[in-house]
């Protein structure tokens, strides 16, 4: 089962589509203005990735290698159309907000990248899991960015939830006279947040590597003094 473990870890953290592969930045910039929008788009993306990987992993023996990309795109486009029409039918208000970005999941490089790099070469179960976990990796990052932007930008969380659950309403987290921070609601805010998250991820990875290296050295030369405590952000 360790192969499945690796797939899950890759999607969620090690090869995270947003933090490491930097795929799907267009919907990230446009839609991560609020937690509800971000989670909705993230869920739609998971759904599409699950279906796309499933479809292509099961059809891969039949798809001629030379024209695989057009075939992939056609299959993904058909799936996205299904999702798009379902949003329009069942979550119409949200559909109006997400607008063009649901059809644009077709062009989202994460979907095609995972299909080409994984589903076209692996079995059904592994591919489905990869689709879900890559989608989940996308979901948690876009949700985090959406939440941070909404909180800092306008001091609320879950605003617009009534589009999905009419009985609920958003929460004013910060005091009502919070002046907001408009730049966070504009595209630069998404860039800032994503940049800081990527930096945070790289930093924690670098720290972990450093610690592992120190332990190895310690194991080789037990007599040496342990490495000095390095400052947290030393270059």
């Amino acid at each position, binding site marked *: 089962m360790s192969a499945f473990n690796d797939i899950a870890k890759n999607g969620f953290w090690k090869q995270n589509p947003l933090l490491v592969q930097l795929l799907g930045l267009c919907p990230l910039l446009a839609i991560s203005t609020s937690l509800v929008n971000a989670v909705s788009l993230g869920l739609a993306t998971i759904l599409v990735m699950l279906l796309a990987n499933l479809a292509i992993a099961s059809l891969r023996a039949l798809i001629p290698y030379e024209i695989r990309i057009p075939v992939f795109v056609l299959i993904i486009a058909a799936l996205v159309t299904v999702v798009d029409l379902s949003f329009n039918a069942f979550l119409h208000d949200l559909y109006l907000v997400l607008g063009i970005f649901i059809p644009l999941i077709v062009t989202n490089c994460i979907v095609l990248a995972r299909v080409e790099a994984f589903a076209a070469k692996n079995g059904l179960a592994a591919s489905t899991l990869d689709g879900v976990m890559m989608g989940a990796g996308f979901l948690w990052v876009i949700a985090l960015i959406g939440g941070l932007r909404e909180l800092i930008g306008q001091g609320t969380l879950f605003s617009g939830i009534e589009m999905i659950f009419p009985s609920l309403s958003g929460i004013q987290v910060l005091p009502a*006279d919070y*002046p907001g*921070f*408009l*730049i966070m609601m*504009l595209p630069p805010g998404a860039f800032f947040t994503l940049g800081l998250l990527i930096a945070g991820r790289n930093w924690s990875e670098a720290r972990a590597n450093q610690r592992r290296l120190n332990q190895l050295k310690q194991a080789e030369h037990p007599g040496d003094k342990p490495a000095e405590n*390095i*400052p*947290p*952000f*030393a*270059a």
Partner: protein
Amino acid sequence: MSNSPYLLKATSVQSVMLRVLLALLPGLVAYIWFFGAAIVVQIVLASLTALAAEALVLYLRGKPLALFLTDGSALVTAWLIALSFPPLAPWWLVVLATLTAIIVAKHLYGGLGQNPFNPAMVAFALMIVAYPQLMSRWPVPGAVDFATQWGIIFGPYANHALDAITMATPLDALRTALHSAGTLPSAPTTVVSALANNPAIGHLAGRGWEWIAAGYLVGGLWLMQQRIITWHLPTAFLATLFLLSGLASVINPADFAGPLFHLFGGGAMLAAFFIVTDPVSAATTPCGKLIFAAGVALLTWIIRCFGAYPDGIAFAVLLMNIAVPLIDMATQPRVFGYKKTGDDVP
């Protein structure tokens, strides 16, 4: 390109920065005279924030605290932020701006000497995009006493009494008058009539503003005499702004303000001697400096005349900062003994 004798003692960053602060004093005195002592509060706020932020980042990065904290560069950034922000801005606006300047614009890029963008201008641009109303809290000169100003700076964010004591800056007033000219049934507004009827306008470019600008001019000339800055950047900036606004106002005096208004209004003088001359983010070759400053002036004038923001200096500086590596590369002076173009063989 230094003159003989070549025996020079390198000027320390600290002495340069201290002299820049000194040179800001004439403008600051004029500022206090016209707009009240609120600016001192803002400068203190910005300076304390800058030092605290600098110390925090230096500690995290494991750099020597004493060396970098006393070099004064953070203080210069803080002063420039405070001087370019409206004096009645709420306290947290200046604090937030200074934190952005020091932590994001300076240290995330590698600290002193590594930042591609002018930190003070990054902070200004960010705040004017995020809080346009707060960034227009300029008091009518002499209208409020210090206690009221203190109350506004540290008071609640939404202060409706403010409308009575703040006013449009001269640049703002001109823009509003000209842009609403077509929509109002009244007599067509021209630069002349807009300026003549406006209480904000003084002899050259706005009551108070022209004297503050003159103060910066004096300080800037002293900096030049001290050889902290060379003539290239300020001269190219002011000359380009003068020529552009002069030409436009000669061709169409009804819609374009004259050169003196542009030179002594807004932040032009502060920019000419203290902002475009930032030794880190500006171009460094003599010819490149001329191109850089002229570009800033061109963009400033375009944004002032046709843009949506009252003063375009911050955006102009940031846009030209992006072009600096290219400008520097294209204007490398010929090394003596080497051909101008071609390979590295002498």
